[in-house]
């Protein structure tokens, strides 16, 4: 018979022995586990520690202590050894707003606030109803277009050639997503079609677009597209570029949506058909709402990519933030401080993309919970 002592049973309570010190003090334990858990780990910690001590202080000195902040002249920047953040104070208007007339910048700022507000509302799960989102975006786009174009209500008209900087980035981004998503859904459905003709066309389109760099698509939009149109018919270059980027985005997004469609069990299709729904009714009311939910994180990831891809218009001469910055930094007085300007632009991209990707991770967790 196994030999076992009875512990504390008579007391009816549990005998609590305090944990050994190394376990008890949470910080000590955390430090030990994470930095010194093994010989290899300890060596790694020491090596990295040395590295940090050697490189971090000089960097911090350059970036903060020796740096020139605020509205200074370029001579002040040249005189100092640190970073020249004054270049941002000096140049931020053309960087952010491009060629837009200086006095009208307030319109752009309001438009940006409205736009960002609309995005925040769209991302909040509480407002996920078609009845809320569609009017929201129609109003959003109407207000933004009104503010940016002007021409009525006493606002001076500003043509699209002068749009630039952050608003242009936002316009391209919005156009890409808004026009791209419906095309993506159609392509995804077409690729899963039973009709070989339709399937072949969709597969060819998707694989071709995914196999070529975005740059070539932009070249097509700028150089080849005008050739397709009869004489006299012209489209604004921005519209052409948006069309190209939208189709490019749609092909990648179509693959994600196709994954979502594949995840819906056959039973859903069968149930919908059994109650007599037609193809489009079934898709719109039953299948797509579920499929889009399933692949939402993938969709958001591609939306983030679309935002980053707006920077490619630098190649064809449209003035999004990056392009405007590059143009502005040709100024011979401030040329030495191009790096600081690019860091500023990188920060803008980083904030937007990082926020969206954190949102996407959050979304994934929420979806996982729902599925259990």
């Amino acid at each position, binding site marked *: 018979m196994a030999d076992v002592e009875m512990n504390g049973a008579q007391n009816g309570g549990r005998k609590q022995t305090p944990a050994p010190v190394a376990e008890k003090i949470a910080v000590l334990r955390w430090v030990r586990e994470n930095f010194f858990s093994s010989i290899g780990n300890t060596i790694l910690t020491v090596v990295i520690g040395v590295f940090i001590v050697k490189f971090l202080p000089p960097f911090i000195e350059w970036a903060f202590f020796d740096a020139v902040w605020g509205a200074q002249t370029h001579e002040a920047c040249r005189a100092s050894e640190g970073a020249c953040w004054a270049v941002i104070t000096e140049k931020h208007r053309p960087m952010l707003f491009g060629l837009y007339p200086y006095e009208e910048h307030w319109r752009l700022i309001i438009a940006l606030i409205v736009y960002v507000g609309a995005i925040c509302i769209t991302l909040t799960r509480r407002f996920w109803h078609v009845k809320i989102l569609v009017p929201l975006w129609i109003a959003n786009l109407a207000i933004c277009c009104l503010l940016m174009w002007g021409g009525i209500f006493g606002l001076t008209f500003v043509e699209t050639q002068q749009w630039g900087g952050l608003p242009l980035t936002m316009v391209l981004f919005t156009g890409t997503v808004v026009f791209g998503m419906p095309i993506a859904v159609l392509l995804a459905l077409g690729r899963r079609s039973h009709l*070989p003709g339709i399937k072949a066309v969709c597969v060819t389109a998707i694989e071709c677009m995914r196999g070529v760099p975005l740059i070539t698509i932009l*070249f097509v939009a700028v150089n080849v597209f005008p*050739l397709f149109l009869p004489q006299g018919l012209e489209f604004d270059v921005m519209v052409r570029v948006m069309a190209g980027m939208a189709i490019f985005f749609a092909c990648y997004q179509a693959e994600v949506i196709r994954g979502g469609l594949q995840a819906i069990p056959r039973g859903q299709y069968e149930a919908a058909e059994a109650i007599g729904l037609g193809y489009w009714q079934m898709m719109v009311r039953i299948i797509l709402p579920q499929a889009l939910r399933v692949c939402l994180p993938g969709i958001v990831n591609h939306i983030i990519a679309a935002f980053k891809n707006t920077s*490619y218009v630098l190649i064809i001469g449209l003035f999004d933030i*990056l392009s405007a910055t590059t143009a502005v930094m040709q100024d011979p007085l401030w040329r030495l401080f191009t790096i600081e300007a690019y860091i500023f632009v990188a920060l803008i991209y980083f904030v937007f993309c990082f926020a969206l990707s954190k949102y996407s991770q959050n979304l994934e967790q929420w979806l996982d919970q729902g599925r259990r």
Partner: protein
Amino acid sequence: MADQPQTPKSDNSILNSIAFRGIAYQVLLGAAIALLGWYLYTNVNENLDRQNIATGWDFLEEPAGFGISESIIAFDSSQTFARIFLAGVLNTLHVAFFGIILATILGVTMGIARVSRNWLVAKLASTYVEICRNVPVVLHVIFWSSIIRLLPHPRQAIEPFDGAFISNRGLMLPFPFDHSLYPWLGLALIVGIAGAVYFTRWARITREQTGKYIATFWPSIGIALGVPLVVWLIGGAPLTWDFPALRGFNYQGGISLSPEYIALLIGITVYTAAFIAEIVRSGIESIHAGQIEAANALGLRRGFVMRYITIPQALRVIVPPTASQFLSLTKNSSLGVLIGYPDLVNIGNTSLNQTGQAVEAIAIMMLVYLTISLTISGIMNLYNKLVAIKER
């Protein structure tokens, strides 16, 4: 009591037949595409005629009329467009090849670092990944290009070690002089690698037959490198380095990597490596802890657990998305057009501007990339079929 709904009468109209409708839709789509295609084609021809732009592929035989700053094959402006496009393709493949190798090394290291138990290592790797992923690759390339432009003039070049020079004209490295022994060394390397493969195979068969385990990792590397080493020693161990030396405004000798090449390489490598790091991390995390526990409970050593349990399963998860990242990197090499590296897109763009034949130039570019892309997809599909884990 309500009346029963009328039974609908049978409908024999062909318009409602599913099969007919299916065929009809496809025919309609085909007709629409054909019509659109014809419309666009006639417009294109009209417009090209109007602007006096030539069509057709004859221009490929014409002399290019412009030179390029670097090329693997010898090139001057009197040679044909066909040749200059070839030079562009080779340049693209050149930067893509090294980009893929470097991005893989960096990405795998960062991916493993992200799941390290050392908090410092994991946090540093996370920071790298988040910063690099969330900044567009265009900005990466331009950023590095700007940094290189800020480097000192060759006369004040930085010399990290003997014979290496970093300046705003690029990176110079010493390179061994061409020697008659080198083809033999190449052959010896191939023999060495074959030997290592055979050795590994022999070790496995021996283990299966007798149970004795023979370590294969370091010995294989030893064999693969040892054979060329022996050949080199036999050949008299020739090693003369061609050191870059400052002549006039720049260095001559050794090998040089142009600033455009370096900026493009670093930019696309750092960007792609961040994505590869995430893929590697998710591959490692996809392996259930229970697997490792079971392997440990059976008494398997850490090395064996890595080799037989962790890595085979992780690779299945890691390889397909990584292949697609490689493809992405190759496509991103087209950013050479931004900073002056003569890759395919840069050359295509210049040709387009010289000849006005936009359609042909762009078609060439797209075809090349499409071929590369479909090849890699095909290989990937093959790999997936081979290693698929069968389920019910």
